[in-house]
């Protein structure tokens, strides 16, 4: 991994230079929340700091849109033509993505690009380079430290592209992947070599960040993983948790790792399309069969399913890690107060 230095005041200049070759998405403030929007000549420096607030949504929809046409069809003279929509080929950069969201995207990569590769996902993911910012100050719902989701990225656990570490008036720029190095290579003259004190300062920021997590949302992950994997959580615990679930699917839609989708079909006259859309295992219709039989008709069963997929060691073996990056968005989204840490804490008590 290569480390170089970029002065903070040069960041906008760098973005202006790379926007010639890339569509750049930057964190932008909308009604007081942070969203990723296409760069239009304006950066908000406080959203590009180590202590910036977590964006409201993960950038999942830019690689896995909430709704997307799989193919369209036209019937003519007894035959039918099928056509796949053109995929965006533009190269993109996400600037200011957080560590947890980067890990989430890599989780989706592992899922969608292996064993029956999803070419729709891949066509959006391949042209994408991620510039993440390491977090120096976790927010009140953050528990990435319990899930290897942050606050800093490490090459051993995540094949990230570029990580910026906020060091007051400059960034230490860590280039990890070929894509990341290639992006920095385009404008080498903007970057300088770090002196040893900067690397020392970087490590201090990381150590300090680790001490700043609140006690409250930290998670008893290992107990929950063990109990879920061994199927030793009593059914009444799932029922109790399920009763607090509003079946709204909010947690799944804000989750950087949730990947399930439904498929819809539409036709008007001789044309139509088949499209996919985000679906949620929270919904009773997720498993309801045409006969009316529903293997997960009870809320508690659906609740168990969601957390089994997130935390059981069977899935860790398949996916390389748990399906939670500790971003805490499910805590914010859940009206029943059964976000990940609350569930994990309940499972620990048995």
């Amino acid at each position, binding site marked *: 991994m290569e480390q170089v230095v970029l002065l903070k005041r040069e960041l906008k200049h760098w973005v202006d230079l790379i926007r010639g070759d890339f569509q750049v998405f930057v964190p932008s403030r909308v009604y007081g929340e942070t969203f990723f929007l296409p760069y239009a000549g304006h950066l908000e420096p406080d959203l590009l700091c180590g202590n910036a607030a977590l964006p409201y949504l993960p950038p999942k929809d830019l690689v896995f849109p909430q709704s997307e046409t799989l193919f369209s069809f036209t019937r003519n003279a007894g035959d039918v033509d099928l056509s796949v929509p053109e995929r965006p080929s533009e190269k993109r950069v996400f600037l200011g993505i957080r560590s947890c969201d980067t890990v989430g995207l890599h989780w989706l990569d592992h899922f969608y690009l292996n064993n029956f*590769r999803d070419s729709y996902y891949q066509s959006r993911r391949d042209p994408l380079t991620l510039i993440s910012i390491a977090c120096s100050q976790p927010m009140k719902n953050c528990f990435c430290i319990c899930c290897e989701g942050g606050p800093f990225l490490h090459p051993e656990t995540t094949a990230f592209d570029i990580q910026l570490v906020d060091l007051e008036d400059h960034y230490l720029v860590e280039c990890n992947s070929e894509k990341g190095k290639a992006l920095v290579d385009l404008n080498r003259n903007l970057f300088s070599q770090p002196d040893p004190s900067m690397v020392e300062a970087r490590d201090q920021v990381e150590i300090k960040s680790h001490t700043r997590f609140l006690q409250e949302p930290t998670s008893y992950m290992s107990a929950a993983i063990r109990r879920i994997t061994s199927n030793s959580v009593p059914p009444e615990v799932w029922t109790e948790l399920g009763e607090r679930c509003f079946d709204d699917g909010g947690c799944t839609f804000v989750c950087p790792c949730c990947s399930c989708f439904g*498929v819809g079909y539409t036709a008007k006259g001789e044309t139509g399309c088949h499209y*996919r859309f985000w679906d949620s295992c929270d919904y009773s219709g997720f498993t309801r069969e045409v006969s009316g039989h529903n293997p997960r008709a009870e809320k508690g069963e659906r609740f168990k399913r969601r957390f089994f997929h997130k935390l059981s060691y069977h899935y860790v073996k398949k996916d390389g890690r748990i399906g939670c990056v500790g971003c805490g968005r499910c805590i914010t989204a859940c009206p029943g107060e059964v976000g990940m840490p609350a569930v994990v804490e309940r499972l620990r008590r048995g």
Partner: protein
Amino acid sequence: MDNIYLPHKAILTGIQDETYDTKTFEFEFVERALKENFRFLPGQFLEISVLGIGEAPFGVASNPNHPERFRVTIRAVGSVTRALHELKTGDRVGIRGPFGNGFPFDEMKGKNILFVAGGIGLPPLRSLIEPMLDSRSEFKDIQILYGARSPADLVYSDRLKEWEKTPEIRFMMSVDVGDPAWTGNVGVVTTLFPKAGLMTQNAVAFVCGPPVMIRFVILELLGRGFAPENIISTLERYMKCGVGKCGHCAVGHKYICLDGPVFSYKDMMKLSEKVV
């Protein structure tokens, strides 16, 4: 770039009425290379789409030794199956697959084979029965017990008559409710068991049918000495993609579409959700 969600065009080449609500459809792929190279294993399934209406998974019901024209047997119950029932010969559908693991075949050679089918559960088993009959000498006893709700619900009536006559298999059937013309056994399929002279040694049972029937047949087989690993059945779940991505058919850490639909009872018991 391969597209796992894009179906291949196929032509409906034949329709056979089976019962008042069930038909068998024969298809052939439009693309020549696919038509010539298409292969499937017994027990695998296809995702068949009626464009604009929907797509659903169906077990292949025909003999894998004759893959160029393959058949599925479909009961009209939902929007996709009803739309399929309205199609005419020559109409186009979309097909993806084959998907899933399929039934074991070579490992069954030299064994006594028992099939227990309920209603529309016979079609997927037929994709295994037919190739076994093609290689009849490689298997020991082959016995088929078939149950349906009523005589009007029995599929493959011509083939059943052949199975009743041939000395190559021992075939028995039963209906839950008879009619004036019915002279055979009346009762659920398990009522055939005491009369069937089951071979329980060196034997494997293949069970396919509605969930409640599978549950009682498995209990009966266990009681008669079949080991859990020698009871093989199929699981069904609401399913969309067929390739382990959409998440609908997940049971515990398995996907019915990738790891199934065929499971031994031993493997079913290892799933962390109750399935039978």
